[in-house]
C-alpha cells in the first residue's frame, strides 16, 4: 500500500508499507544500507509472534508524478475488463527505487490464558484446528501467539498464489483457472503426503496451513479423503481466509471422515454454521455479539475456560456416566437373576420370588439414590490433578472406562452375585429349623432374606466402586439399606389383606432370629469378595491412568515431572 503526498515546500513523496517479502524487492540500490539488519530484526519479531511491516519511501519529481497521474487517471476511467490488472501495473511502476525506513512489529492481543489453555489441550492429545477468515500471514502469527505453532514444527503451506495460476487469472478463463487450481492443490497435497511419509519414525511434527481458495478444491469429493488423511498426521491445522460455509464444511468433513467427536468453539456470527455442525458447539460471549452463544450448546465467557471444561468436567462426566451405566447393568442383573434362579426351583410356573411391591420399588427406592449420587458427584481424580495431568482426558477419547470388556465384566459380576446370593440363602436357611423354636422358613421368609441380601450387596458394591465419599454418598448408601428395613416393618405391620404374604414377616419371624442376621452378613461379605479381589489385582498389576494419579496423590509426591 502506498500513499503519495506533497509537503508544504512542494516536494512530492511516495510512502509505502507492506510485507517484507514484497518490500525488499522494490528497494533502490542506494536504499539498502540497513537491509540485512532490518531483515534480521523482522525475523526476530516474527519468531516472537508479532505482526511485522516494512516501511520505505522515495521522492518523486514533478514530471514523474504528472506522467503517473495521467496514466492512472486514464486507466481508472477506462472500462476495460482487465482494469484491475492495469491499475496494478501502473502502480507497480511508480513503486520503485524505494529507500528503506525501517520495520514495525505489532502484537495482536489474545485473551488471557489462551496460549496456556492450548498448551494443555495439546498435552491432552486433542487435535486442534484453527479456521479463520484472516490472511495467511495473520493466521500464522496468531498460531505462533497462541502456541498452536511452535518452533521445530515444520509448516506445510498449501496455497494458490503461484505464477502459472496468476497468469491464467489474467487471461480470464475460469475453466482453465479451476482446472489448474485443482491440479495444483492435488499436487501440493500429494507432495505433502510424501513428505510426511518420508518423515515417519522421526520426532518431527508438522503443521498444515491452507488458504480458503485451496480449501475449496480440497473439500471436493475426489480430494477430501486425501486431504483428511494428510491432516490426520499433522499436529495442528490452520485454514485461513475461509468463509463461514467452508468452516462448516471442514467440520463436517472431520466429523464424518474420522468418526471422532468434534468440538467447535467460536465467538462471532460467522461461526454459527460451524458450531451447529460440530458434535459440541461452544460459544464465547463477548463483544462480537450473541449469535454464537445462542446457537451453541455451552456458553463460556473466555476461551481459557475451555481448559477446565474439557479436562476437568469432561473427564468427570465421562467417568460418572460410564460408571453409572455399568452399575445399572450390575444391580438389575443381580436382582433379576435371583428371580430367574427361583423360577428354576418353582418348575417355571411363574411364581415370583418376591412380593409385588418389592418388585416395583427395587429400582425406585432401595438402589437408585446411591447411583444418582455417583452420577452427580463422583470424582475419581480431583480438579487440580486433572489439570496437572491433561493426558487423563485420553481415557474418554479411547473409551477405556466404557469398553465392551468392562460392560461385560460388570454383567458377569451381576450374574456371579445373583448366583451366590440365591444359593447361599437357600442352602443356609432351608430346609432345617430357622430359629430356636424349631420353626422352618417358608417361601415368604426366603424371599425377604434373599431380597435383604440383594439390597445389602448392591449398596455395598456401590460403596466399593466409588472413591469419593461425601456426606451425601454416605446418607444415600446406608440410608437405602435402612430404608429397606423401615419399609419392611411398615409394610409388614399393615393388615393382612394389604400386606398379604409379608404380614409381620420381619417383625415376628426374621428379626428375632439370629440366623437371619448371620446369613445376611455372610452372604453380603462373600458376594463382594470376588469383586474386591479382581479390583485389587487390577489396580496392583494393570492400573489405569486415573488410578496411577490417585496413587500419586496418596503418596503426596508434588515434584512430578510433566
Amino acid at each position, binding site marked *: 500500500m502506498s500513499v503519495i503526498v506533497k509537503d508544504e515546500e512542494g516536494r512530492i513523496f511516495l510512502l509505502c508499507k507492506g510485507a517484507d517479502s514484497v518490500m525488499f524487492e522494490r528497494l533502490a540500490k542506494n536504499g539498502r544500507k540497513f537491509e540485512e539488519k532490518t531483515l534480521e530484526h523482522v525475523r526476530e519479531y516474527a519468531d516472537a509472534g508479532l505482526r511485522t511491516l516494512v516501511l520505505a519511501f522515495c521522492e518523486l519529481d514533478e514530471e514523474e508524478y504528472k506522467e503517473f497521474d495521467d496514466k492512472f487517471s486514464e486507466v481508472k476511467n477506462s472500462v476495460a475488463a482487465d482494469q484491475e490488472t492495469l491499475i496494478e501495473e501502473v502502480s507497480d511502476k511508480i513503486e520503485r527505487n524505494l529507500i528503506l525506513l525501517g520495520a514495525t512489529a505489532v502484537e495482536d492481543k489474545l485473551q488471557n490464558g489462551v496460549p496456556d489453555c492450548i498448551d494443555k489441550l495439546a498435552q491432552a492429545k486433542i487435535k486442534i484446528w484453527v479456521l479463520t477468515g484472516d490472511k495467511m500471514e495473520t493466521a500464522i502469527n496468531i498460531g505462533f501467539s497462541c502456541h498452536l505453532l511452535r518452533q521445530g514444527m515444520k509448516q506445510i503451506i498449501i496455497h494458490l498464489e503461484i505464477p502459472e495460476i496468476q497468469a491464467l487469472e489474467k487471461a480470464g478463463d475460469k475453466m482453465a483457472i479451476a482446472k489448474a487450481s485443482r491440479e495444483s492443490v492435488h499436487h501440493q497435497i500429494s507432495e505433502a503426503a510424501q513428505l510426511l511419509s518420508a518423515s515417519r519414525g522421526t520426532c518431527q511434527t508438522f503443521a498444515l496451513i491452507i488458504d480458503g481458495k485451496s480449501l475449496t478444491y480440497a473439500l471436493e469429493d475426489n480430494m477430501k479423503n486425501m486431504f483428511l488423511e494428510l491432516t490426520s498426521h499433522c499436529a495442528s491445522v490452520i485454514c485461513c481466509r475461509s468463509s463461514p460455509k467452508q468452516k462448516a464444511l471442514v467440520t463436517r468433513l472431520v466429523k464424518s471422515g474420522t468418526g471422532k467427536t468434534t468440538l467447535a468453539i467460536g465467538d462471532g456470527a460467522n461461526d454459527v454454521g460451524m458450531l451447529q455442525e460440530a458434535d459440541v458447539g461452544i460459544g464465547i460471549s463477548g463483544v462480537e455479539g450473541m449469535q454464537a452463544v445462542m446457537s451453541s450448546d455451552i456458553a463460556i465467557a473466555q476461551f481459557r475456560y475451555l481448559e477446565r471444561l474439557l479436562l476437568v468436567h469432561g473427564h468427570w462426566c465421562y467417568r460418572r456416566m460410564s460408571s453409572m451405566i455399568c452399575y445399572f447393568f450390575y444391580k438389575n442383573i443381580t436382582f433379576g437373576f435371583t428371580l430367574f434362579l427361583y423360577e428354576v426351583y418353582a418348575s417355571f410356573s411363574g411364581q415370583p420370588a418376591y412380593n409385588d411391591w418389592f418388585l416395583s420399588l427395587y429400582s425406585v427406592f432401595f438402589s437408585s439414590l446411591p447411583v444418582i449420587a455417583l452420577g452427580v458427584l463422583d470424582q475419581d481424580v480431583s480438579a487440580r490433578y486433572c489439570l496437572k495431568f491433561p493426558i487423563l482426558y485420553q481415557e474418554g477419547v479411547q473409551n477405556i472406562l466404557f469398553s465392551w470388556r468392562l460392560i461385560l465384566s460388570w454383567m458377569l459380576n451381576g450374574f456371579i452375585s445373583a448366583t451366590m446370593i440365591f444359593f447361599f440363602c437357600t442352602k443356609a436357611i432351608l430346609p432345617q*429349623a*430357622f430359629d430356636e423354636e424349631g420353626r*422352618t422358613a417358608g*417361601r415368604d421368609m426366603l424371599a425377604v432374606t434373599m431380597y435383604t441380601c440383594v439390597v445389602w450387596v448392591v449398596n455395598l458394591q456401590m460403596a466399593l466402586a466409588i472413591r469419593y465419599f461425601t456426606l451425601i454418598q454416605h446418607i444415600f448408601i446406608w440410608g437405602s439399606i435402612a430404608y429397606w428395613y423401615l419399609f419392611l416393618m411398615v409394610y409388614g405391620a399393615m393388615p393382612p*389383606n394389604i400386606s*398379604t404374604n409379608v404380614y409381620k414377616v420381619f417383625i415376628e419371624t426374621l428379626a428375632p*432370629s439370629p440366623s437371619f442376621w448371620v446369613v445376611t452378613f455372610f452372604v453380603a461379605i462373600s458376594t463382594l*469378595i470376588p469383586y474386591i479381589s479382581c479390583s485389587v489385582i487390577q489396580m496392583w498389576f494393570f492400573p489405569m*491412568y486415573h488410578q496411577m494419579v490417585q496413587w500419586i496423590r496418596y503418596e503426596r509426591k508434588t515434584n*512430578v515431572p510433566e
Partner: protein
Amino acid sequence: MDMPDDKDAPPTSKKTSTKPIYSKFSQQELPAWKPILTPGWVISVIGVIFIPIGLASLFSSDCLPPSHAQNAVAYIQSDTTNKTCITKWTVEHKMEAPIYIYYQLDNYYQNQMLIFVSREDRIRYLSLLTIQPTLYLLNRREYSKECVRKCIVSILFFSIIAVIVFKTSNCVDMILVNSCRYGETTNCFPEDKTKDNQPIVPCGLIAWSLFNDTYKFSTNNKDLTVNKKNIAWGSDQRSRFGSDVYPKNFQRGDLIGGAKLNESIPWSQQEDLIVWMRTAALPTFRKLYGKIEVDLEVNDEIEIAIENNYNTYEFGGKKKLVLSTTTVMGGKNPFLGTAYLFVGGLSLLCAIGFILLYVIKPRPLGDPSYLPWNRNPGSIK
C-alpha cells in the same frame, strides 16, 4: 463567548452481576473421603467363622409292605388296608428337650404358581379405583358447589365399591379373617364348591392337600407325648386365620387330597393346617409336626408307629421323618459352617498371597516414572 451549560449526566446505574452465588455444592468442592485400596486394608479382609450346633437324625424307611410293592398307588388309596408300620431307631447322641419332629417332603412343588390365586390384584384394583376421583379433582379449575357435590358423590361411590371388594375378597386361602363370608369361594377353583354347590371351607388346593401322616413315639414301652401346640406362627393364629370360622364341607368331594379336619375346632386352633398353609419355598422342605419335651439319652431305643396315609408314590415324591434339636441358630446345617470356613480360608489365602507379593515384589505404585507418557513421550498406549 458564552459556553452552553452542560446537562446533568444521567445517574450512574448500578451494575447488576449475573454471577451465580458460590457454594461448595454447586462448585463440586464438598469435603470428601477418598479411600484407596492399600495393601494393609485389603489384607485385613478375613471372613468370620460361625458353626451352628445341633444334632439331627434323619429317618427314612420304606413303609410299604412287600406285598404291595408293585402297586403302591392302589395300596395308598385303599381304605381297607392296614397302613400302620412300626420301626425302631437308636439314639446315637443325647438329645435335650425340646426335640422337634419334622416331616420332610421331596419333589413336592408347593411353590407351584397354579396353586395360588393372585391376591395382589386387589391392591392394584383398589389403586385404580382411587385414581379416578383424584384425577377428577385435580383436573378441575374451579370448585363450584355443584362440582364439590359431584366430587363427594364420586368419592363416596368409589369408597363403597372399595369396601365391597375388600369384604368379598377376604374369603380366600391363607387370609381367613373373622368376617369371612361362606358364600365367596370362587377364587379357590377347583376346590371351591361341592357337587351340590355348597362352599368348601377351607378352600383351595393347598388346604385340600394337607399332609395326613401321623406318628406315635414310645420308648421302653412308655409313650412319648407329642406336643402339637405353638407350632404355628403367632401372627397366623391371631390375624390370618379366623377364630370364629369353622371347617365346612372339607374333603367331601370325590377326590380326597389329604387330612380331614375336625369341624368343631376353629381355624385359629388348627395348627397343622396353619403350618401347612405357610407354603414352602423349594421342592424339598420340612414342616414342624410337633415337639417331644423329654430328653432322650444315648442308646435309648425309640419305637415309631407311622400311619402311612399321604400319597407321594403317584408323583415320585419322598417322605422323611426328622428329629432335631436346635440352637439359637436353628437346626443343624453343615452348609453355613462349611461355607464360612471356606470363605474365611479363601480370604486368608488371598491375604497371604498379597502379603507375599507385597514383600517379595514391592512396587511403588505412586512412582510417576510408571506413567506411560513419561515412559514413551508422545504415545498413550
